[in-house]
């Protein structure tokens, strides 16, 4: 019988994370302080992050040891299995070999705990008693809630009120893991109280929830803030995935010609691809593809420029592929792919031609997800469907070319608590809406006055 799943014994769990900062062909440009325009220093971030994570954020050390305490938690779901997608290959009649790394086996069902557990640990040893964060539908909030529980930390999640009321399952997951999940705006912060005073029935927003979480971290005793994407230390922690995958591919006797992941803020994509980017830097011939929605073409059409990481301009200025902090995509059906800016590390690797961005339309992604569910069985998160769509494209291309390519992709999470998106697809309530170039030009006007990084590139529009 063919081997379907390639397991890695727990003894082979990577002992170190890989830090791409050590091998970046072009050094990263520093984030800028929004007030002074000067590079952000550790003290600027210290009110919301522990110093050990700030050190990782700026580290250029190639390998960083994974603490024993984190390894002991990782083994709850890691190493995750690598699958050979035989049934999808048969369905497509492709000579390509398709592998997928199943990150959906973690307790919350996604890759998010790979960094949440590390952040919880480093906060624990730094003396943090409580971690605050914000969440929309709840994928990140639930991951952090679990990881705080595993390290005996309090977890405070400011969940946008409309999500709080409409997405009961993620909220219940957070509560089950002991998190204090409150609807935002809340009466617990000045930011929340101010909004409620003006609009007692405010349904909340992501911007309000971020403001509340940051304020709670700054004002609370032994309290810090946690972010699940974009930042360098988040990318670092996610590399445990790609490092495992390299070992599993070696067991399978294959090496990928193509590595594919969906790219929102960049964390799940970074997790699978960065160790392979290292190989590419050192001479391997690999096509590494980050997939984004066509209606949110940050990587494919945005310039490499300084921009705020958020719409309320509270985060430091970061060099990134961006369409402006007020860029507004057309309706897309992948919650995790909502960032207007890509992680700076991923942006830089695109600039260095080590990663290739591809945009796909949402209808194609759902069609791909349904094909995958009917061949390999798993129902994917809407974000994950973006990667599957490009896997299918690449497999069909290999068929046309008669090449036995090896395709690897990150199956970043299941969609079992997000079936409403599938329902909308089945009911014919989805449509593709490519964003007009004129809209993108308008959005880019917002970042025109900001400082330009040394490697500034113009928009492709």
């Amino acid at each position, binding site marked *: 019988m063919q081997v379907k799943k390639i397991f890695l014994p727990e003894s082979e769990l990577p002992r170190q994370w890989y830090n791409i900062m050590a091998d970046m062909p072009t050094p990263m440009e520093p984030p800028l302080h929004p007030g002074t325009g000067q590079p952000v220093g550790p003290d600027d971030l210290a009110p919301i992050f522990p110093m050990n994570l700030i050190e990782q954020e700026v580290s250029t050390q190639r390998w960083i040891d994974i603490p024993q305490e984190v390894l002991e938690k990782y083994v709850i779901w890691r190493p995750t299995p690598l699958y050979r997608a035989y049934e999808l290959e048969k369905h497509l009649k492709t000579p390509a070999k398709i592998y997928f790394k199943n990150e959906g086996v973690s307790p919350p069902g996604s890759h998010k705990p790979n960094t949440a557990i590390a952040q919880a640990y480093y906060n624990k040893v730094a003396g943090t008693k409580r971690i605050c964060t914000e969440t929309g539908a709840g994928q990140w909030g639930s991951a952090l809630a679990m990881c705080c529980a595993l390290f005996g930390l309090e977890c*405070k999640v400011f969940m946008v009120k*409309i999500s709080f009321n409409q997405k009961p399952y993620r909220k219940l997951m957070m509560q089950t893991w002991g998190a204090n999940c409150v609807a935002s705006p809340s009466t617990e912060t000045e930011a929340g109280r101010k909004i409620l005073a003006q609009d007692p029935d405010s349904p909340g927003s992501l911007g309000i929830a971020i403001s509340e979480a940051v304020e709670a971290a700054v004002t609370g005793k032994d309290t810090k803030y946690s972010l699940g994407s974009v930042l360098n230390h988040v990318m670092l922690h996610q590399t445990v995935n790609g490092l495992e995958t390299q070992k599993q591919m070696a067991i399978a006797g294959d090496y990928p010609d193509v590595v594919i992941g969906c790219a929102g803020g960049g964390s799940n994509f970074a997790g699978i691809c960065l160790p392979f980017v290292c190989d590419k830097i050192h001479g391997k011939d690999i096509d590494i593809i980050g997939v984004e929605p066509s209606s*949110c073409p940050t990587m494919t059409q945005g310039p490499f420029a300084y921009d705020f990481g958020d719409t309320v301009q509270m985060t430091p200025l970061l060099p990134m592929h961006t369409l402006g902090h007020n860029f507004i995509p057309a*309706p897309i059906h992948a*919650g995790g792919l*909502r960032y207007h800016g890509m992680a700076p590390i991923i942006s830089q690797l695109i600039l260095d031609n080590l990663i290739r961005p591809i945009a796909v339309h949402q209808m194609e992604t759902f069609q791909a997800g349904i094909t995958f569910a009917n061949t390999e069985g798993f129902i994917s998160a809407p974000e994950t469907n973006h990667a599957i769509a490009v896997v299918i494209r690449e497999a069909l291309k290999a068929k046309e070319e008669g090449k036995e390519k090896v395709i690897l992709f990150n199956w970043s999470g299941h969609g079992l608590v997000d079936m409403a998106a599938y329902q909308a697809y089945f009911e014919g309530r989805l449509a593709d809406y490519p964003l007009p170039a004129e809209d993108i030009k308008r959005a880019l006007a917002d970042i025109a006055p900001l400082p330009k990084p040394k490697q500034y590139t113009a928009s492709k529009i």
Partner: protein
Amino acid sequence: MKRDSTPPDDANKIRCPRLGHQITFSYCRRENYGLPCFRTMECWYPHFLVEDYLRKELSPEEWDKAFTCSDKTKTASLVELIEQAKERTRKSPDTGG
């Protein structure tokens, strides 16, 4: 959906790219202190003539507040927020967030 300036009712939802779930136009319309979410026009323009609708609904001042980059809001930087929070903590050191 017919492309006119009548907004869809709450039976019609689109997936919010920021929140990650389905939402109604009525949410987007009042998401920001009772004013529209800054993404409202871009998210809803394929569904109806949202700009025409909002031009009629909002005063010029409200329009600017909703859709023009507000220096006041956008200059609420992280550093400023941290400094404000520190000040509150100094006044009431036992107050948690």
